């Protein structure tokens, strides 16, 4: 237990709220996320999941509350006090953001290799050969054939695009990855392969992640813990298998009982 108490949270949300005018995005969300911990945020559309993800990743400014992040040097910063340049630097190095729609996270017209290499160049890599071989190595890890390195993602299938987006995000060795419905819109067989790949990489790299999903199977497979959101508020949270196998709240029971048997 002592080493558990010694390590400190990577990301801390304190009383996070967001109003869009009179419309509530999310209200009073607080949690600590530790290194290597994967947290799923589940709930139906409109429950505030995506708002929360954007607040956590400094893409939205909270109406109340704050998000603190522990940088690699150990210093903890309120994201609101970081300058634009520092936030951009975080986004390029220490964080990843996997969009549901790969077209938002990729440059569709440039080659797959360049999509991955671009993140490395943004953190100062200059040697073409090394960038290329790092990109190829990452394409291998996400199971994209070497022969497709020079093709743009516009020629890729949906599953390949999503795997490429993951490679682009992980190539800089981030410590925290945000994922917004990473398997949404994919065929079931493609989903299974992608989930398997993500769970392997997350465990191997010891990544912390916040995964927004409406799919409880995704939460079960990827996450250690889960927060259930409804109407902008967190109504239940805990260990993933505990919340899914022994749900307490009426809405969580409804979600769990609504899964169709395969």
């Amino acid at each position, binding site marked *: *237990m*002592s080493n*558990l108490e010694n390590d400190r949270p990577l990301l801390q949300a304190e009383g996070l709220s967001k109003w869009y005018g009179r419309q509530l995005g999310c209200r009073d969300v607080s949690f600590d996320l*530790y290194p290597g*911990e994967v947290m799923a945020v589940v709930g139906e559309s409109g429950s505030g999941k995506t708002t929360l993800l954007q607040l956590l990743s400094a893409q939205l400014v909270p109406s109340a509350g704050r998000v603190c992040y522990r940088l690699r040097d150990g210093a903890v910063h309120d994201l609101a006090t970081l300058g634009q340049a520092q936030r951009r630097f975080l986004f390029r190095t220490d964080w990843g953001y996997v969009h549901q729609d790969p077209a938002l996270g990729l440059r569709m017209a440039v080659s797959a290799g360049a999509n991955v290499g671009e993140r490395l160049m943004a953190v100062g890599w200059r040697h073409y050969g090394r960038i290329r071989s790092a990109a190829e190595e990452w394409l291998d890890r996400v199971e994209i054939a070497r022969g497709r390195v020079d093709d743009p993602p516009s020629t890729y299938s949906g599953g390949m695009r999503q795997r490429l987006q993951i490679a682009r995000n992980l190539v800089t060795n981030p410590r925290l990855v945000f994922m917004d419905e990473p398997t949404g819109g994919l065929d079931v067989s493609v989903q*299974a*392969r992608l*989930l*398997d790949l993500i*769970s392997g990489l997350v*465990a191997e790299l010891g990544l912390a992640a916040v995964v927004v999903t409406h799919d409880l199977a995704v939460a079960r*497979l990827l996450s*250690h*813990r889960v927060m259930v959101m409804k109407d902008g508020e967190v109504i239940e949270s*805990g*260990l*993933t*298998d*505990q919340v899914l*196998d*022994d749900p*307490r*709240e*009426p809405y969580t*029971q*409804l979600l769990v*009982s609504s899964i169709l048997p395969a």
Partner: protein
Amino acid sequence: MSVIDLVEVRKSFTMHLQGGVHLPVVAGVSFSARAGECVALAGPSGVGKSSILKMIFGNYRCDGGRILLHDNDTVTDIATAPPRAIIALRRHAMGYVSQFLRAVPRVTTLDVVAEPLVLAGVAREEARARAGVLLRRLAIPERLWPLPPATFSGGEQQRVNIARGFLADMPLLLLDEPTASLDAANRAAVIALIAEKKRRGVAIVAIVHDEEVRDAVADRLVDISQFAAAA
């Protein structure tokens, strides 16, 4: 030395989708298991035996009481511990063999079995080698090892599950009907594995309906029907 102490543990379910029906399961559950001891939970089906194992593993929540797990010099109350403390305990301090294997697509049998050791920090190759030894003892033919277990028979899946649960040496091992769908030879193999765990000082809490197996492994019975909660 006590490894696990349950103190006045209480559990009920409220089924909100069925008009808020309240189902009391157990109340006042108190028992302990010491290092090297196998405690068998007894009582008819539906009395709450599996629920108790699930509460110990942190899979079900408790309504009240304490579940104290002693690991090295620390004591954790699983009833109130945060998720990451329970996950850490599952990696290092407690194993659980459920009745059914929850198979992950695409992961090979050998890696399914080796995973708990890998999570506990053992190098993958060594973990696989040790997984292979156990699979052989449980008569899973080597040609099946590279395949995901999803398509295996019920008995094969159960043996894969047992191998996975028995691979790492944790202070506490929870067994839910580990021999339910096994033939005599494999039952004997599981009895031998349990005896070895006990010799190595592992505390075991088990649900075993098969009397022959229970007589062979259990040091003590705890009758769960004495803890039936009033409706």
